[in-house]
């Protein structure tokens, strides 16, 4: 196992370099650079533009810029944001946390709903109930996230439903609240985006659970248990479910990989202070170092997610050995 991990870890390095190289050049493929868009401002002279460009090193060839950037990364220096003139790590830090909070609850939401529904659908497979559940599960993924978000916002504005806030992550009086009130405040803001994000991954998970459960229920040991005269309840929840849920654990690893990138559009709709809004802005405005850091973060999470999935797979399934 240890050697396996070591090998995987060594694989990650060229992977990261590959991702970063392609990202860097794709971002530079677009004509112009961060400074170019300032040119539309009548107050800024070409001389000033050149000065700012030199300051950011944007007057260098792309190759030089890339290796300069790569060199900095090796010392864990992610560079400065052109737009904010502060270190990228400072800029991204809080936002990553916010996005992780949102994604975590979205995943939790979809699991809590999808697992019971999946089991239920498996027990009543191919019945009318199964069809209805399937239909509703797919209902969620069939509406584009941004549109569902807007509909929910509109609904809340017109009905004042539960007094839910319109976008954001905290209320303006957040700083004056006690610890538990703060939790409640953030929770209130999370309701709508979590619903939107959660419904998007609900269907896949539920179908997965249903499949695994059906699988488990057709296994010999379940039949044996049944023939021993155990009640359906015991058979389903004690024997089948235990075996069905194991493979799902690996899925959790993959969910981690989707944590960062998946929420971008939802964040924009709900003015949520996460990574998505900032990344969109950074890619569009070619705030190079920020965009690069974001892309790299996403890539690292994907890789780590895959790794965790593989390890979990080995843990729950004794047939798999890595060496």
């Amino acid at each position: 196992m240890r050697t396996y991990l070591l090998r995987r870890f060594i694989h990650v390095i060229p992977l990261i370099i590959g991702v970063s190289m392609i990202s860097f050049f794709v971002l530079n493929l677009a004509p112009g650079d961060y400074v170019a868009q300032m040119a539309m401002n009548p107050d800024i002279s070409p001389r000033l533009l050149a000065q700012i460009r030199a300051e950011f090193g944007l007057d260098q060839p792309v190759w030089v810029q890339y290796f300069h950037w790569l060199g900095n990364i090796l010392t864990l220096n992610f560079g400065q944001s052109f737009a904010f003139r502060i270190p990228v790590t400072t800029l991204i830090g809080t936002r990553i946390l916010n996005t992780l909070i949102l994604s975590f609850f979205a995943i939790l939401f979809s699991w809590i709903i999808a697992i019971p529904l999946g089991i239920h659908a498996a027990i009543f497979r191919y019945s009318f109930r199964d069809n209805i559940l399937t239909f509703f599960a797919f209902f969620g993924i069939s509406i584009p996230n941004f549109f569902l978000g807007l509909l929910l916002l509109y609904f809340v504005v017109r009905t004042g439903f539960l007094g839910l806030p319109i976008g954001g992550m905290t209320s303006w009086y957040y700083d004056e609240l006690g610890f538990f009130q703060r939790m409640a405040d953030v929770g209130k803001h999370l309701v709508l985006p979590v619903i939107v994000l959660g419904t998007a991954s609900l269907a896949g998970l539920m179908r997965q659970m249903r499949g695994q459960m059906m699988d488990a229920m057709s296994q010999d040991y379940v039949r044996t248990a049944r023939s021993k005269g155990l009640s359906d309840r015991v058979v389903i929840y004690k024997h089948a479910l235990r075996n069905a849920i194991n493979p799902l654990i690996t899925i959790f690893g993959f969910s981690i990989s989707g944590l960062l990138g998946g929420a971008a559009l939802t964040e924009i709709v709900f003015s949520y202070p996460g990574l998505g809004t900032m990344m969109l802005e950074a890619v569009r405005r070619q705030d190079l170092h920020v965009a690069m850091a974001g892309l790299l973060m996403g890539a690292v999470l994907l890789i780590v997610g895959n790794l965790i999935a593989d390890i979990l797979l080995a843990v729950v399934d004794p047939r798999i050995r890595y060496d």
Partner: protein
Amino acid sequence: MKKSLILFFAAALVLSLAMSIAADIPRDYYVSPYPVGTMGDTFLTCQMSDPRTFNTHIAKETSSTDIIYRFLYSTTTRDPHTAELIPHVVKGWDFSDDGLVWDFYLREGATWSDGVPITAYDFEFNMDVIYDETVPTSSRDVLQVGGEYLDYEVVDEYTFRIILPEPFAPLLASAPGPLPKHVLYEPWKAGDFNETWGVNTPPSEIVGNGTFILGGYRPGERVVLLRNPNFWQVDQEGNPLPYMTRWIMHIVESQEAMMLKFEAGETHLVSVLPDAYARYKMNERRWNMTVHDLGPAFSTMFVVFNQNPNAPQFDHGDGEDYHKFEWFTNIHFRRAVAHALDKDTLIDVVYDGLATPQWSPVSAPNEFFLNPDVPKYHYDLEQAREELRKGGFDWDAQGNLVDWEGRRVEFLMTTNAGNAPREALGNILQSDLQELGMRVTFSPMDFNLMVGQLTSTFDWECIIIGLTGGLEPNTGRNVWHSSGQLHMWHPYQTEPVTEWEARVDEIFYEGAMTVDQDERQELYYEWQEIIATELPLIYTVTQHSLVAVRNTVKNIDPTIISTYHNVGSFHIER
């Protein structure tokens, strides 16, 4: 010793009256004419995006300046109703008869938010920073006359002097304000000025002289402004302003979302899109608010054709599309396009009637400089055809427009994707030009890409874009002077190519040198006449600025010049 001095005396008179009411208020404090209100509320608004810096010389975008201008006030401001330049941080000014020596008199007793007096040394320090070539500030280019820096000196603690090499009319509009020397001198000397007062600076380290000071910033969420305890304005009873304890600006990425937030009762004020005006008007009573139509705003929108012979596709006659250069430089062609521009439909369809046709480069609120009698091109496809015929164009058997060598007239029109009014104009104009027999491809593109084409690669044909106008025509120098980088149709000319461009260059030179306002008006009238005749930019319509305010907010007096000019007097009715 003109108008400004009279103003100064008038102000002094009001001030001395105020003094008799509250004796402990410094004599030079400004007294707000608005009714007395109550203290201690929170004002809630929205703004479009995150501030990028709190450093006034680094800020290049409104999302930063909108906040910086709340805590750092400048020398002059505009009268919210007449747009006239009036004293702000200073109490008045004075200039020599030749217009070269300008003295600015500071308000004695006025302090920074940390209690340190604002002195002429703070003005001097700001000038030092502006002329420091390592600081990427746009003020440096503005504060140059004929390529020379201005001289400045501290006369005494409360008098600051600027000495011009030659008369320079825009000085007052762009006169730099004070910068807190006691806070920023050290970092500047250490060479860290560009990184000072960034968004990661603790707000307590940032001092200001505005109504509010920075109280906090949560990225992507909101900016918190706190009451400046040492603000130099008082109400008529001598109570210190502002009344509001806090001003929260939520950061909300879209205007639709801002309106939703307002409708849910989470904010006090929101700017309303024209197509939502009717809905807001209808709900005025229900939502307990008032919608103000402030009239045409400063933003402009125009169509521009590439007339740059250096563009790669023209290449002085060697490029493959050189014939298009010939069309675009043909004045009849441009006039035909102007006649094909259906402003009424645009106003009707896009702005629900809440826009005004624009014919000249000066924005409508700038009444003093706006020339109302420039040539106008009304929507008339017959006249457009007439112009095309005059220009040497003709139609083939299928009704396609062809030029003098039988080449079919076709070109590419673009604008930045996501800008609804520009895209709408493109759609409408495209269909009208097709009616005239042209083949126009309209395809919006990414903003950066478009700016790149416009300012550096020049490989474009026709663009719909806009600029935000101001009150001082000279700020458009970069657009109108033939050497400017924003002289979009043909930038960076070493010598003006056409006669009319030469004349515009002259006007901008003279306009900056002339101090007499009436003479300036005449000069800029002529410039507008030339532009409307030659149509390098074909102006379209200007949208009205609409703002909805909760009726609980008192003393609010929004004008097209400024919504927040008297924010110190705002208070909430309980």
